[in-house]
């Protein structure tokens, strides 16, 4: 009898692995063969011996299934727990070792729980580190609570954060009773000619000596500025930042040495720490104008500090170039200081009616200026990661509940054998402490990686972003999260045991009392996860739509094919004379020659020079319309744009009325200017402004044309009212060259740089990039928040999907016997499928409804970050519904399909 062939015929396929199947068949064949020989040897007939052997393989379907199941890695029964020892510490150590052993035997569960915890805790640590460093840690100023910005206000132009005039600064200093220091500072563009290498563009801050004291700056080398350095006409030494010292001078001894800034020799008297400029850029950006390098480009660190050396001749009361910071006296309330300074402003208004008419003052806490703009988006991100953490904990709770249910027999037996509840609790706590610790350790690794990416892509204007790292405080947060999860979820399986009876000892787990409680709790957790996922995905969807709207919003000019280069023309070689309007023959000649040479580049279609590139807000001025002076109080200040005539063609700004600027407008009297569409709509509604006169800077100008409105304050803001005048009529030391090319603008970059270097080797060229790059950079903050929230939303979807899948899988496993009975009694697969899917759909539907309600309630917190879309946008909500329904459907389908594949015979045999 060929038993091998017999067994092979009965069991054609077992595990799916041909080699393994062959081994099993051979072994079973030997067993039945030996049974046959034994029966034959004891006197049975061949037929009887055959029956005795063959009966072993009677139920081949069940045998095949059992062999297949047995040959697959399965969760194992837990080994018996360690016996009690003398000391509690030893007991705890025993519990921990036992817990590690137990967890190693269930690698799938352990990996899922640790990974989920690591994700949830990891992103929480990363974002908390940012919030802690940027917002929570106090600003590094001494007496930060007493530091305020003193903004001048102008009711005539409705500005609330204006720079001050130098004479006003002196008057505030002299007359204030409530401040013990008032300092002034001003952003200046500088260029540095190092001993070797190319000239560099610098961010220079001109300060009065009180500023450094108020900011708590301490020199690393040398000394700080003294009052004698601040006297007009004095040599004007400089302090340089550690960053510049190391990058440009390799840390060489520099104190006492002379360096050339803006073509003028300056003695270095000290080196200050790089972070001495904390908050300066944020202050410059907060000002309505006069922010200099802080407001207009990507420079975010101060390289050089020099004395302001202000005097009333250089800075008369009509000009407002300086920003003021004050330290309130000890114990002085901000309201008292406000009243005091308002009194002074009123006195000045009375004394200097021409210059200070309708001017006031308002104080703002310095911390609010520095941190205020970044607080809303960072808090939104913190709320998002808190939701992620809750979802991760819910998923882990589900996993622990499922596992706890499977271990009820073990717990019931130990309880019946006399184990105290406290002992059981300690063991479960030990297991969850091990899990949570592993999760927290992995979370730290993940957090490091996430933080490195965050710091790289975060907008540079977030204060202290480069200093973000994981410190003791964030470690404590991680440990706290882990401890919370460990302790709270340890109690769940023990709570389940309180309702277990000894009589249930050997019954199957799903019939033990407490199984239904666990099912309800799991269902609640999944509903909560779905609801939170809706909130996160809705938030991300709204931000994605906002960003999309921003990208789709026409900026008012065409960036395609354009290259920008920023130039700094030092006064020493390009002097500007005020006669009384500024003029400069050197700048005019340089600009003319530059444009001619640029136009000769192959591929160059047009070129222009502007005092401010199209995304640079520039500065503004009040203006009047003759015979409509009374209306001026209703108009904001007008943005002054100084451009060469080719500007509009280069940037393809459309002409609405009249004509573009021409060379003749510079010399005409009154000078010709062009206004934008916003001026026409707001100041000349229903009237053609061409030919009308507009007055600013104390002289009249004739409007010769109207052009389309550029969004010079950023795509997210409405275009301001703006007037364009010939650059040569009012030249600027800092200007931007814009070139339109027929091909890739980057290919012209090196040629442009070479031409400028040939014309003036000492000139600093910076910001050489396609204008499309400049536009993209202007959306960095919106992009950053959108990308982060979208990442969190994806994470939330994964967690929700895992949660739904886990709960339904557990339900199917527990209902396996019932499903088997139903199918054995005639229920078809479709009905079983519908039943399981209905359970999942019910949980998802409840979660969706809760989630949408929460989204609508919480949506208002996002309003400040949205553009072109409301927080209750129906299209976004519909999109979220589709996405979540699809994810939920997939998560429900997989366990439902497993339910349909239950073999009724096998299920009925199972306990």
């Amino acid at each position, binding site marked *: 009898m060929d038993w091998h062939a017999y067994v092979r015929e009965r069991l054609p396929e077992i595990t799916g692995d041909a080699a393994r199947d062959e*081994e*099993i068949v*051979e*072994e*079973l064949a*030997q*067993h*039945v063969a*030996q*049974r046959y020989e034994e029966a034959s040897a004891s006197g049975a007939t061949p037929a009887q011996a055959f029956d005795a052997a063959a009966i*072993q*393989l009677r*139920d081949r379907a*069940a*045998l095949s299934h*059992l*062999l297949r*199941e*047995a*040959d*697959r*890695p*399965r969760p*194992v029964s837990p*080994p*018996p727990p360690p016996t009690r020892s003398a000391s509690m510490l030893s007991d705890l150590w025993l519990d921990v070792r036992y817990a590690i052993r137990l967890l190693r035997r269930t690698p799938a569960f352990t990996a899922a729980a640790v990974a989920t915890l690591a994700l949830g805790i990891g992103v929480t640590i990363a974002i908390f580190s940012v919030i802690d460093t940027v917002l929570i840690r106090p600003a590094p100023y001494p007496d930060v609570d007493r530091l305020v910005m003193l903004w001048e206000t102008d009711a005539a132009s409705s500005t609330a954060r204006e720079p001050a005039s130098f004479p006003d600064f002196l008057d505030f200093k002299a007359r204030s009773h409530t401040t013990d220091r008032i300092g002034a500072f001003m952003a200046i563009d500088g260029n540095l000619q190092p001993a070797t290498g190319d000239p560099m563009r610098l961010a220079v801050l001109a300060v009065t000596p009180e500023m450094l004291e108020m900011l708590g700056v301490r020199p690393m080398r040398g000394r700080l500025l003294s009052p004698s350095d601040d006297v007009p006409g004095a040599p004007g030494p400089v302090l340089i930042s550690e960053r510049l010292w190391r990058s440009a001078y390799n840390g060489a001894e520099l104190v006492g040495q002379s360096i050339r800034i803006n073509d003028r020799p300056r003695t270095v008297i000290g080196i200050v720490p790089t972070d001495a400029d904390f908050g300066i850029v944020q202050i410059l950006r907060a000002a309505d104008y006069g922010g200099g390098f802080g407001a207009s480009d990507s420079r975010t660190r101060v390289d050089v500090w020099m004395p302001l050396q202000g005097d009333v001749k250089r800075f008369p009361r009509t000009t407002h170039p300086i920003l003021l910071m004050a330290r309130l006296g000890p114990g002085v309330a901000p309201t008292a200081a406000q009243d005091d300074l308002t009194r002074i402003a009123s006195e000045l208004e009375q004394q200097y009616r021409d210059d200070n008419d309708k001017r006031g003052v308002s104080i703002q806490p310095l911390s609010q200026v520095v941190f205020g703009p970044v607080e809303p988006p960072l808090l939104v991100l913190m709320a998002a990661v808190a939701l992620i953490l809750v979802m991760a904990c819910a998923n882990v709770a589900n996993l622990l509940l499922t596992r706890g249910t499977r271990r009820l027999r073990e717990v019931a*037996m130990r309880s*019946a*054998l*006399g184990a105290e509840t406290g002992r059981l609790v300690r063991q479960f706590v030990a297991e969850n402490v091990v899990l949570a610790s592993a999760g927290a350790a992995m979370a730290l690794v993940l957090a490091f990686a996430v933080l490195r990416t965050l710091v790289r892509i975060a907008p540079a204007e977030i204060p202290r972003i480069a200093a973000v790292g994981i410190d003791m405080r964030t470690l404590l947060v991680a440990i706290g999260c882990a401890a919370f999860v460990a302790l709270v979820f340890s109690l769940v399986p023990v709570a389940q045991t309180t309702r277990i009876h000894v009589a249930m000892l*050997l019954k199957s787990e799903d019939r033990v009392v407490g199984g239904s409680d666990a099912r309800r709790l799991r269902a609640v957790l999944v509903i909560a996860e779905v609801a939170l996922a809706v909130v996160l995905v809705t938030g991300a969807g709204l931000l994605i739509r906002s960003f999309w709207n921003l990208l789709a919003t026409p900026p008012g000019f065409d960036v395609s094919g354009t290259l920008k280069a920023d130039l700094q023309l030092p006064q020493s070689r390009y002097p500007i004379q005020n006669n009384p309007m500024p003029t400069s023959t050197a700048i005019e000649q340089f600009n003319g020659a530059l444009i001619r040479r640029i136009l000769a580049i192959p591929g160059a279609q047009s070129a222009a020079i502007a005092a401010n590139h199209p995304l640079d807000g520039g500065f503004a001025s009040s203006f009047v319309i003759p015979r409509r002076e009374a209306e001026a109080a209703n108009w904001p200040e007008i943005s002054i744009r100084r451009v060469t005539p080719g500007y509009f063609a280069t940037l393809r700004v459309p002409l609405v009325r009249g004509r573009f600027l021409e060379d003749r407008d510079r010399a005409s009297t009154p000078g010709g200017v062009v206004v934008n569409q916003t001026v026409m709509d707001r100041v000349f509604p229903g009237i053609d402004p061409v030919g009308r006169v507009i007055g600013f800077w104390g002289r009249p100008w004739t409007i010769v044309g109207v052009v389309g409105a550029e969004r010079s304050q950023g795509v997210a803001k409405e275009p301001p009212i703006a007037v364009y005048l010939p650059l040569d009529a009012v030249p600027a030391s800092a200007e931007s060259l814009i070139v339109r090319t027929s091909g890739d603008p980057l290919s012209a970059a090196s040629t442009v740089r070479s031409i400028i270097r040939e014309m003036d080797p000492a000139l600093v060229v910076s910001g050489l990039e396609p204008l499309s790059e400049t536009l993209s950079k202007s959306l960095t903050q919106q992009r950053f928040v959108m990308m982060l929230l979208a990442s969190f939303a994806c994470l939330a979807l994964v967690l929700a999907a895992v949660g739904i899948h886990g709960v339904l899988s557990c339900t199917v496993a527990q209902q396996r016997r019932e499903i088997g009975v139903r199918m054995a009694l005639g229920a078809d697969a479709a009905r079983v499928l519908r039943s399981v899917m209905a359970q999942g759909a019910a949980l998802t539907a409840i979660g969706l409804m809760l989630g949408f309600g929460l989204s609508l309630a919480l949506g208002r917190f996002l309003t400040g970050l949205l553009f072109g879309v409301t927080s209750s946008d129906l299209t976004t909500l519909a999109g979220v519904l589709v996405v979540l329904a699809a994810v939920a459907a997939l998560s429900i389908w997989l366990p439902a399909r497993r339910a349909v594949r239950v073999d009724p015979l096998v299920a009925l045999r199972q*306990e």
Partner: protein
Amino acid sequence: MSVNVFSREVKKGSAELMILALLEGRSRHGYEIGKQIEARSRGAISFQVASLYPMLYRLERRGWIEGRWVEKAGERRRRFYRLTAEGRQVLRRQRSFWHEFVEALDRVAGIRPV
């Protein structure tokens, strides 16, 4: 009393212990294990192919026993199983556990013959 009246749960729960105990002294093949169980229990417990081999493969997957094919002169190769170091530890723990359990049952239900 025949094994048939014994609870399936008790039989299943003790099968691991019996197999590990039989392999403690020496390695055996599957048929011999089944015969030894039947012989030493005096016929009270017997395992069919459908119970014995799935159990052996499960124990092998857990790393408590190790199977290998042995070829002896003049005979077809057979698969022998032996106890691993981990299996010895598990056997020790299970013996201890069952000892406690039986003691507890005896205290409650007086199962030992007087």
